[in-house]
């Protein structure tokens, strides 16, 4: 494929973007990518611009000294640096191990979306454990729903659960 900017050279940099729900893909040659500023995001680490998949992780190539990119996944041994450089995860567990670091890149690729659709039979360790506040608010809305349909038995059970959880925080 030829570069979409100059139309002369082979495109070696491929950038996918979703901005405000609009998906687009840009294919650029080395020179145009550099000229248009797409090379800059790699300047901090000296990564190879032609490595197309690394384009998904500009956050880490834009020099963030506070982020430890040498951390390794205990399952497959892949370091986060390798993930950034190749654009590839080493195994399914890498997603939970590196989740906090991945978050900005994931939301840039996918927006703030979470999965809807088919569910698999097997679940890996969740990338994000459900937050305490979310659990309480879910129980409270379930309680309201139970009261609305006059299912008082369920409502009583839910109220006890909420009390137990909220009591737990007070004591703990």
């Amino acid at each position, binding site marked *: *494929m*030829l570069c979409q900017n100059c139309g002369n050279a082979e495109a070696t940099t491929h950038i*996918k973007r*979703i901005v405000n*729900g*609009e*998906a*687009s*893909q840009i*294919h650029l040659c080395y020179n145009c990518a550099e000229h248009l500023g797409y090379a800059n995001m790699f300047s901090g680490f000296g990564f190879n611009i032609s490595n197309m*998949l690394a384009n*998904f992780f500009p956050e880490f190539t834009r020099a963030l000294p506070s982020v430890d990119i040498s951390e390794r996944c205990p*399952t*497959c041994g*892949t370091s986060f640096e390798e993930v950034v450089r*190749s*654009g*590839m*995860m*080493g*195994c*399914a567990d890498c*997603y*939970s191990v590196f989740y906090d670091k*991945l978050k900005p*890149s*994931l939301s840039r*690729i*996918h*927006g703030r*979306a*979470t*999965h*809807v*659709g*088919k*569910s*698999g*039979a*097997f*679940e*890996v360790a*969740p*990338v*994000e454990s459900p937050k305490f506040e979310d659990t309480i608010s879910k129980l409270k809305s379930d309680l309201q729903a139970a009261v609305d349909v006059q299912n008082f038995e369920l409502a009583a059970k839910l109220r006890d659960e909420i009390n137990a959880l909220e009591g737990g925080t007070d004591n703990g």
Partner: protein
Amino acid sequence: MAKWYQLQGAENDVVISTKVAIARNVKGYNFTVRLTDDEKYEIADKIDEILDGKLPGKFVSTPMVEVGRDLQISLAERNLVSPEFVSFSEGRTLVTTEDESLSIMVCEEDHLKIQSLLPGLELEKAYELADTLDTILDEDLQFSFDKKLGYLTQCPTNIGTAMRASVTLQLPALSMRGQIPRLANTVAKLGLILSGAYGEADNPIGSLFQLSNQVTLGISEQAAIENLKSISLSIVEQERAQRIELMNSLKFQDVLWRSYGTLKNARVISFGEFMESMAVVKVGVAAGEIAIKNERLNELIFTMQPATLNVEYGQSLDRQVRDAKRAEKIREVFE
């Protein structure tokens, strides 16, 4: 047994084929970049074992190292595998039904790419085929899945449903009218990508385009397919309207009948020239002026490609010999 591309499909005056591909990774194995060839074959063996038990006789499993170069390229020409899949053979296995409508690329980018191919616009049916196979395999293989991120894939761009659905459209009239850039722009706003199937992105060989979904996270399989289907149908309508318009032009009529003459009479023809002429002839077929069934023309898109012709004749043909064989086959259709 007939291959899927020899059959008739819906809207096949414009839509050549439908493909649904689902990426999956097996629990307990690293992703493909971190697997040895032995581990890759181990995954293929597990798939074979499950399919032999649950769907005996339906699938054939072939390690790519046992496949000759012409056949490998032919598989890619017929969209059964990606060009990447045949860029090297070690560790890779193709599992497929005899008619090639349902297949699994083992250890391409992800452990499994379950793929269904059907003629014409058949998105629901293609998804159902791939989905059923996915469910059967998931029971035993257990695919890596996270509630929040969906199916986990080697490349983070594919997480979620990990499904790519695409339709191949032949758009000679919209291309001649210069409507493709506008169309590509519009579909991009709707989360889809329109790109050339062979050759240049904006001006592909034979006006063959691929329309596919881009978003995999936050949209269900059904919603993605419904979206792709409704936009495909709208493009089909636009193409049909433009074809009718074109037939009013004497200049186009001249191009049409010359193209028809080429296909009916040529003694030597390249794949590119065949595709260009065939795309134009499609407009005449739509107008009822040329009596050839669309499925017979569509089938030629797959069977007339160079490596596929080599495979049919059992040898790597000299280019000129191959162009002559191609012309002969096309004349048979136009008799």
